């Protein structure tokens, strides 16, 4: 055993254990990347989410190419333009790649102006094609809006919703669970029965009822906050149970009694002994709760009860992929689902790793 092991704090021991969990170790930077993407979506997206390219409605994704049709290699990637054909019988427009028109993709292209982080005005995009030509890496929707850009913008709401929802859940859960565990007695009984009651109600109908109660006149920001409150009102129960159980067992630990006998005040016992002992559990529970919240928002928005267009979230985007017809003809509209699956998986991997590392002393 090395000296560093002996003087390692809880966090360092946790990190040691966490490192052994491969998937979690991969998930962590990828999640950070996703969140950074959400923060800098204006810069990263080649187009604005609401810009309509009326000539390119329902166009399929373009492929980013290095080799052209003559087999010549280009160091700078390029995309082909679209060639539109109208089916004489069904009047459906189909797009194919027009090999005659090549648009090289440049870095730091000037395009539509946006506000980075909400206040830095800029018109430089990380990549794009020049002169307003189309660049639709994941195709467009029925109004001709670039899906890739919309997904990046949508990640702002979808990803932050998980965090914000869980943050509020954490507040409810810790306070109510803390009261339940610390005071015990009839207070505990009442709170636990209330939790039983809440858990017994099927969540989706309850969400729907509550979400339907939000006024349709509310702005996006209000709706967003309202939904966060709805989620945490339902979601805090699990966390409250964890906190209560942990408090009950920690109260019985000898080191808590030793601290009391040492003359430590209640505040000192709570903040130096009890809380540090379950920070790690809170982090784990929280991490595992984030994907559930993200899925919840997606589900409600998909059903049309959550965030409303023109605001974009992944759930709102998926609403466009509701009918079989669109799925058959525009399968690329399912791209947001891929992002949701990826995010949820990454969070679960991360949570798994954290759970293994949560108690480095066992």
């Amino acid at each position: 055993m090395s000296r560093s092991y002996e003087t390692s704090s809880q966090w360092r021991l946790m990190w040691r254990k966490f490192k052994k969990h491969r998937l979690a170790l991969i998930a962590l930077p990828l999640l950070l990347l996703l969140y950074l993407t959400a923060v800098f979506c204006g810069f990263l997206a080649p187009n604005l989410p609401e810009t309509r390219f009326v000539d390119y409605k329902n166009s399929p994704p373009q492929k980013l190419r290095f080799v052209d049709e003559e087999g010549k290699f280009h160091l700078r990637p390029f995309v082909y333009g679209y060639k539109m054909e109208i089916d004489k019988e069904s009047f459906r427009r189909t797009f194919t790649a027009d090999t005659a028109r090549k648009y090289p993709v440049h870095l730091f292209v000037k395009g539509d102006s946006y506000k980075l982080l909400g206040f830095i005005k800029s018109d430089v995009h990380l990549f794009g094609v020049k002169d307003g030509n189309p660049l639709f890496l994941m195709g467009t929707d029925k109004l001709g809006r670039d899906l890739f850009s919309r997904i990046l913008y949508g990640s702002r709401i979808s990803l932050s919703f998980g965090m914000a929802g869980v943050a509020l859940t954490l507040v409810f859960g810790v306070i109510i669970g803390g009261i339940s565990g610390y005071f015990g007695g009839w207070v505990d009984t009442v709170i636990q029965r209330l939790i039983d009651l809440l858990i017994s109600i099927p969540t989706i109908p309850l969400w729907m009822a509550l979400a339907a109660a939000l006024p349709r006149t509310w702005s996006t920001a209000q709706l967003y906050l309202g939904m966060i409150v709805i989620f945490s009102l339902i979601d805090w129960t699990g966390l409250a149970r964890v906190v209560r159980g942990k408090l009950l067992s920690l109260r019985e630990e000898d080191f808590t009694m030793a601290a009391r006998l040492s003359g430590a005040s209640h505040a000192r016992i709570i903040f130096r002994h009890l809380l540090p002992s379950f920070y790690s559990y809170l982090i784990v529970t929280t991490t595992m709760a984030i994907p559930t919240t993200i899925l919840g928002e997606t589900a409600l928005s998909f059903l049309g009860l959550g965030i409303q267009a023109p605001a974009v979230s992944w759930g709102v985007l998926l609403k466009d992929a509701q009918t079989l017809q669109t799925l058959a003809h525009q399968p690329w509209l399912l791209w947001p689902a891929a992002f949701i699956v990826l995010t949820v998986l990454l969070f679960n991997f991360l949570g798994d790793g954290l759970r293994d590392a949560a108690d480095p002393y066992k």
Partner: protein
Amino acid sequence: MSRSHPAILEIDHLKKYYPIQKGFLRRTVGHVKAVDDIRLTIHEGETFGLVGESGCGKSTLGRCLIRAVEPSSGQVAFTDRSGERLNVLSLDNKKLKKLRQEMQMVFQDPFSSLNPRMTVFNIVAEPLVCNGIARGAELVRRVTDLVERVGLERSHLNRYPHAFSGGQRQRIGIARALATNPRFIVCDEAVSALDVSVQAQIINLLQDLQRSLGLSYLFISHDLSVIEHISHRVGVMYVGKMAEIGETEALFAKPLHPYTEALLLSKPAADPAKRKERYVLSGEVANPASPPSGCAFHPRCPYATERCKTDTPALVEVEPDRYSACHYAGELQLQGKRQS
């Protein structure tokens, strides 16, 4: 060691009843009498050994004295350093905090008794910080002293408990208990969780500390050999009550309560040739929620009579300094410890 020394702790009619609650409204349907009417005096500089089977209330008694558990009723008088007699059970929080500087506790489990998230320094320093006794360089000096006194090194101060063995952890626990310079320490099964060789080291440490600091101990254990080794006087507890109290040697040589005899005889003899005559205490420890009528030990007692089923025996002084709670304490010829 007994009568010549002044009392440091006098316990009188101490009771701790836990209510048994049932149903949604938590009606009290009975009581677990964990500590039932205990009278006991512990003298200065003495080690009082408290022995009994699991669940007999030894630990609860120890915890009641320092008010880690609130007793239901009774009296505990503690004589502090200045000679003032404090009524422990009626102290307010401020005075209780002061009392606990003079009265400390060493716990059974060396793993759960140290906060794994604190360094040794912070663990040992906690009583000094909380009581405002030392800070800064003085704090460092005192903590270093304490740690060295219990046989650890200065270099251990920045380590976390996970880096130590059970015995070392127990040393840390002892250093913490010593921090406020107490006069009386409750050792609640302090060596029970340790290996036999480590037990001996910790017992020696406790004895050294007793000699150099003039400490008094209430040493709680279920291990008769440990009790015999460390205690000046011994109390035997059975289902919340004291069965017998006496000087260690006398009690081990000639018990005055059948329960003590049973404990002594059930201890395996070192000599395998004597194994045949091994006595096995039959039956289970009585349930403290509904103890048997009369003498709680009568269902397991080989000498029990009709009287034992109805009359509860009181703890009386049978011989000088020998107390027993048996109706036939003077009459029975009980076997003492086997010579091995």
